[in-house]
């Protein structure tokens, strides 16, 4: 165990009152969080919702609720990451040129360099690992079992455990804001900067353990989703009929299952360096700091495709629905997904072409990177041909899907530029690279926002407000264009990334444009919140039947909206790739089962939440080096797991009569919704819109 600088006590470790930052911005954020927290707690107590929260959400093993909680965590962290972005843009527009003013103790701008470094490190870590990843895992959780006609995931208990470990990671990141500091070494954690000698504080430890704990959750979730897709499909759901989103979920989780352990190794070895004084990545004593970069990016690049493949899957579901046409090139779409997943393993070195691995190595990775463009190009053309001569309807999910397509064009083509080492040498570490990967991640964000709008009615039974969704889309898109086009340009002009101060005043106009773009983003956040509020307020006017869009195609739209906890009362038999279209074509989409049967379901359990609480203790103890807490938490986790394994009564049975009663109520409500919809002159959600292909 290495000795650390500064005071340490056996009870509190490195924790002391001095750990509370005295920065006015953080104080503001703290007050905001406390007020918000008190409001939520007060509402829960006032409305007497604690029992409901505990029974229906905190101890649930229902894949839909777990998925929704994943998405909520992701959206909260997305907002936090957005605030980080807003702060960075504002710093760069203020700190431009030698005569720029300084506030709050900064020579230029309002953020001192060490604070600015923490903000971009937090922004990257949060956006990739605590916003995009949980939202995608959440959407896969909600949609995949429904699409394949399963009752739940293969391992519902493990599913809840994954959620709570992800929540612990997010909680550690939020704690770092108010207790201690965060890593200043970038989201990638450059070695040897992250070594104890150069980062003696707790920031790096927060970053390291937040990622480590949540990535255990992601790995468990990946194994669960793969087992679900392989083993839990309904009869007739052959591989050739599997919906594309489920295919992309399979490919993406194979990536997650095989790549996240490498991140665990990279961070684990870094942890050994920081806690035991080993020499894996140190400069000197036989360490090799390039080993870290390789291990990190061997996970890091597959992770990029881990986030983008589900987005491709979402686009592949949305575009056919709103083109009222089958997806063009189903087989090539599946092949392309797996080609991208496969090639993702042989491109990691393009993140550091300039490290001087030599022309032969660089050439291999350059060509492998360009190869990614082929399956991606196949996908783009497939989507374009799906829209071509379709009956296109530009409802909000379709807008997001088409936006994602354009982002993919821009991001993909600039990616091809960066794949060439000669180009890469001149723009390496510039904001051109930053603009490129943000455009790519915008594909994910557009896909996610489209998918949330698209599948929202399936989970909650009513649609989101359409006009506000459109405003959200357009303000968001204007923001994207105004932030990232100037960023590409200034990157080409030589602006390097991670600057807290810009020496070249010629870059000022670009910074102003980007700041305006961030303003549009801020407006878009308002419209999003307003959309959620108005939709919730007017939910009775926006109720939908099983097929929320009137032209949906896949199996999940056969289940009632909102989906009952057992998903399908009787397991459906699948006859076609687009099962709902097939049933509509045969006039069978309204046919309900005639006989109901007992359904075995997993029981709610508080064990995953308890393990999560101990994991939080473990992470917190490790960050602050409070050894009694780490030891106690670790032993408690093991004992809890063992104790749980002795529990025999983990399932219960829903009686056939009960299922019949629930189904009858649901059908009655669907009929009312259809009548109300027809009376209001809205689209008739039960009217068949096309015949089977």
């Amino acid at each position, binding site marked *: 165990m290495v000795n650390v600088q500064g005071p340490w006590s056996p009870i509190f470790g490195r924790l002391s009152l001095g750990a509370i930052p005295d920065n006015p911005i953080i104080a503001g954020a703290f007050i905001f969080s406390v007020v918000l927290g008190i409001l939520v707690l007060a509402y829960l107590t006032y409305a007497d919702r604690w029992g409901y929260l505990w029974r229906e959400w905190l101890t649930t093993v229902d894949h839909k609720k777990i998925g929704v909680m994943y998405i909520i965590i992701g959206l909260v962290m997305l907002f936090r990451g957005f605030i980080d972005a807003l702060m960075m843009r504002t710093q760069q527009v203020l700190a431009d040129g030698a005569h720029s003013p300084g506030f709050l103790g900064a020579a230029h701008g309002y953020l001192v360099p060490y604070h600015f470094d923490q903000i971009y490190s937090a922004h990257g870590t949060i956006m990739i690992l605590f916003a995009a990843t949980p939202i995608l895992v959440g959407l896969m959780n909600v949609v995949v079992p429904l699409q394949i006609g399963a009752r739940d995931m*293969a*391992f519902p208990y*493990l599913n809840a455990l994954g959620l709570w470990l992800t929540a612990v990671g997010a909680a550690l990141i939020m704690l770092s804001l108010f207790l201690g500091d965060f890593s200043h070494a970038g989201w990638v954690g450059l070695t040897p900067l992250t070594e104890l000698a150069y980062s003696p504080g707790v920031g790096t430890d927060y970053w390291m353990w937040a990622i480590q704990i949540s990535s255990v959750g992601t*790995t468990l979730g*990946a*194994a*669960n989703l*793969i*087992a679900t897709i*392989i*083993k*839990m499909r*309904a*009869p007739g759901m052959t591989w050739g009929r599997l919906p594309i989103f489920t295919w992309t979920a399979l490919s993406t989780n194979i990536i997650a*299952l*095989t*790549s*996240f*352990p*490498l991140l*665990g*190794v*990279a961070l684990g*070895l870094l942890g*050994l*360096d920081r806690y*035991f*004084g*080993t*020499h*894996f990545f*140190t400069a*000197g*004593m*036989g*360490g*090799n700091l390039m*080993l870290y970069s*390789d*291990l990190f990016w*061997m996970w890091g690049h597959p992770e990029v495709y881990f986030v983008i493949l589900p987005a491709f899957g979402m686009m592949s579901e949305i575009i056919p629905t709103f083109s009222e046409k089958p997806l063009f090139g189903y087989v090539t779409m599946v092949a392309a997904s797996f080609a991208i997943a496969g090639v993702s393993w042989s491109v990691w070195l393009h993140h550091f072409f300039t490290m001087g691995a030599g022309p032969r190595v660089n050439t291999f990775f350059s060509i492998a990177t360009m190869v990614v463009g082929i399956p991606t190009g196949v996908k783009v053309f497939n989507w374009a041909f799906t829209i071509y001569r379709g009956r296109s309807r530009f409802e909000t999910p379709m807008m997001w899907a088409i936006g994602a397509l354009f982002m993919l064009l821009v991001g993909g083509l600039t990616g091809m530029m960066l794949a060439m080492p000669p180009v890469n040498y001149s723009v390496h570490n510039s904001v051109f690279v930053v603009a490129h990967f943000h455009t790519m991640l915008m594909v994910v964000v557009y896909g996610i926002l489209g998918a949330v709008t698209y599948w929202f009615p399936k989970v909650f039974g009513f649609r989101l407000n359409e006009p506000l969704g459109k405003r959200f889309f357009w303000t968001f898109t204007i923001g994207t264009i105004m932030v990232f086009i100037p960023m590409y340009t200034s990157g080409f002009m030589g602006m390097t990334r991670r600057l807290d101060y810009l020496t070249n005043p010629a870059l000022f106009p670009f910074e102003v444009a980007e700041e305006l773009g961030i303003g549009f983003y801020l407006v878009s956040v308002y419209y999003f919140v307003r959309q959620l509020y108005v939709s919730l307020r007017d939910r009775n006017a926006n109720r939908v039947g099983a097929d929320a869009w009137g032209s949906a195609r896949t199996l999940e739209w056969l289940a009632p909206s909102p989906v009952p906890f057992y998903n399908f009362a*009787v*397991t*459906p*038999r699948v006859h076609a790739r687009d099962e709902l279209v097939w*049933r509509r074509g045969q006039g*069978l989409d309204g*046919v309900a*089962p*005639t*006989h109901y*049967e007992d359904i075995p379901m997993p029981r709610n359990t508080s064990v995953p939440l308890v393990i999560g609480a101990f994991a939080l203790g473990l992470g917190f103890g490790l960050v602050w080096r409070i050894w009694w807490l780490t030891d106690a938490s670790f032993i408690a986790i*093991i004992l809890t797991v*063992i104790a749980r*394994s*002795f529990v*025999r009564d983990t399932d219960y049975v829903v009686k056939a009569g009960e299922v019949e009663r629930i189904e009858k109520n649901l059908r009655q409500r669907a009929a009312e919704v259809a009548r109300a919809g027809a009376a209001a002159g809205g689209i008739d959600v039960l009217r068949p819109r096309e015949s089977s292909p």
Partner: protein
Amino acid sequence: MTASGGMESGQSALWEPHYHHDVIATRTLGFWLYMLSDAMIFAGLFAAYGVLSHTYNAAGGPVLHALVHPWTAYAETLSVFASVLAYGGVMVALKRGSREGVLAGLVAAFLLGALFVGLEVHEFAALFRMGIYPEGSGYLSAFFALVMTHGIHMAFGLLWMATMFFQVAAQGLTDKTVYRLLNLKLFWHFQAILWVLVYTFVDMRGVL
């Protein structure tokens, strides 16, 4: 499976009553997937060991032939293989449905596995007495991390075995205990295979 799949009523073909998934097969697949992720951890550690096992990574300190004792490692190999064989006995007893046979096999596999861990602890204690620690150099860090990670896996396997002993003793051979015994079989064989790799690339390379 197609009990009601006939087309006679038109709508019974739309639904599949009494459709159930094979729980033990699903659990076993899930465990294979876990092992795939565990294999990736070892792949990362072997890669780190490969990168850091050059003489210059030793920073002037000891290198492999000063660290490994082929005969102790050989005894470890025998004990881990004998433990896997004893666990095979658990599987045979499971097939016969003999709870006593399962318990006896678990005890034998546990003791032989404990012998392995004991020998490894003894080996590391000897190194520590000589002043050889993971902090010595990048070379030593990679060596200790790889071998100890395997050792920790073995120790967790022993904990699992002990848990299964009490669970089978208390609950008998139920669906839950059976799939856990099957998964433990996979885990134990997997650790033996990993030991073969460690023995080949660490111990045997140290003798050459």
